[in-house]
């Protein structure tokens, strides 16, 4: 227990010390950070949807979001990519390689 606390505390000190050395020069581009964080949030939401929707559908939704919203492709392209990659994944991982995928109420 003590060892963990020691490592945790000294990590905190060093992190703060390192943080004070961040150069003030580079302004943070909040649009960019927003893009990254909303992608992360979308991923988190799709993981949360595993239980009700299952892996295949929630990931098709994520793909659709990234391609259509983040990369501004047409909605048709996005839908196509989403369906194709989700279906491809299901076939390769679940059927061919029998890697377990999180299952939803619909059974896939």
């Amino acid at each position: 227990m003590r060892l963990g606390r020691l490592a945790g505390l000294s990590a905190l000190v060093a992190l703060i010390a390192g943080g004070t050395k961040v150069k003030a020069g580079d302004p943070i581009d909040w649009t960019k950070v927003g893009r990254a964080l909303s992608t992360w949030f979308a991923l988190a939401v799709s993981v949360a949807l595993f239980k009700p929707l299952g892996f295949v559908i929630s990931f098709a939704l994520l793909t659709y979001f990234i391609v259509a919203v983040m990369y501004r492709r047409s909605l048709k392209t996005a839908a196509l990519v989403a369906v194709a990659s989700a279906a491809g994944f299901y076939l390769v991982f679940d059927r061919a390689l029998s890697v377990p995928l999180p299952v939803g109420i619909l059974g896939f």
Partner: protein
Amino acid sequence: MEILAGLLNGFAVALEPANLFWCFVGVLLGTVVGILPGLGPPATIAMLLPLTFNMNPAGAIIMLAGIYYGAKYGGSTTSILMNVPGESASVVTCLDGYQMAKKGRAGPALGIAAFGSFIAGTFSVVMIMLLSPPLAAAALRFGPPEIFTLLLLGFTMITYLGSGSRLKAVAMALVGMFLGTIGLDPVTGVGRYTFDTATLSDGVGLVPMIMGLFGVSEVLLNVEAGITQEVFQTRIGSLLPTRADWKDSAGPIARGSLLGFVLGILPGVGAIIPTFVSYALEKRLSRTPERFGRGAIEGVAGPESANNAATGGSMIPLLTLGIAPNVVMAVLLGAFLVHGVQPGPLMLREHPDLFWGVVASMYVGNIMLLILNLPLIGLWVQILRMPYGVLFPLILLVCVVGVYGVSENVWDIVIMLGFGVAGYLLRKTGYEPAPLVLAFVLGRLAEESIRQSLLLSRGRLGILMERPIAAAFLVATAAVILLPLVLPRLQALLARAAAESPDA
């Protein structure tokens, strides 16, 4: 003789059709991953780990190792054609490689990178073969004090791992060490920071951590930039370097191979530092240093050889001591354990087929890579034009499947998400995740070995100084800490002395 017999046995394993196929898959994937900026070997190997569960151990390790050394071949292609490192160890190659491409000499640059990689890669496999058996024999006599002091040396090297601030690297290493203490106490079995949850009582998983820090955060960094893909529009032309190119490159390739291999063995060094050292060395040795940065072929040949040799060198601590000297080896260590093999001094005796099979597969893999990277270069250039919008959801998908596949525990996906956003924010503020992961892995081993040492000595720390090998590691550790403090002053002192002496 023993080595020869082992190697023949190894080739018998490596040339089995299934293993040959997995070797090919590994080096092919490695090349692709190396070429694509933004997806590195640690995340790829971690992602593919669950796919190997149904494979035999030899095939699995052969494939995963192939990804590692294959990525070093691919990385140079992106550096030369796009001026963006496809892989972190190819940063230096951008300097002269891209300049060569701009001058219409992309072909020879790609060619010498591939040949240099092949020569260095093969050299390092020969060295692994010659050095591993005696090292493993010596390591059999290592007890917990020797292991602990060696790990201590590794910890001090970690701070040189990053290219940025040393302090930040130390901070990351300490965070990693702290995360390593989560889980059950290795001696008493008391839960530490587990909050009485089952997921954390096994500790934080290495796979979710790596996928988050290297997979998810990498995608986030790329999404934010919305990369503008600019492939250098040029006829690549003949890939074969001219006779003059070879004459210029022979020395850098030889020195880069040796340097990369020796540095690669050291824990914490990784494959990036050897490339910088090699570049600086060639520039200093050159009679025309002003050509560097303007398309000198030596500046491609040296570093590209160094990173491939370092890749081979870093296999040695894993195969003979069971210690991971860098992040990729940490993942590979995980892969060995998943397949029920403990890498280390006993592996050579208990699983000779696996050891020699992997070594022999590296000869085969290097030949495959040479063939893949030279005639097929046009294909790889096409991959660089692939739309990233399609690629990123796929990477995220594989990360999630990979994490879930290892444990079938949804909470591990949540842990990965946490590390993903943390990795992104850390990198934005200049903290690199590699020291964290390495300290996480080494920290657990170090804790175990120091506590075993203290049990042996009944609580006396003196045991670390009394055993000669352990004491030698301690001296080396002190040297690593003190040298950077002393050296600049010594140099300044010498320079002043030289300036003051009248005849200098």
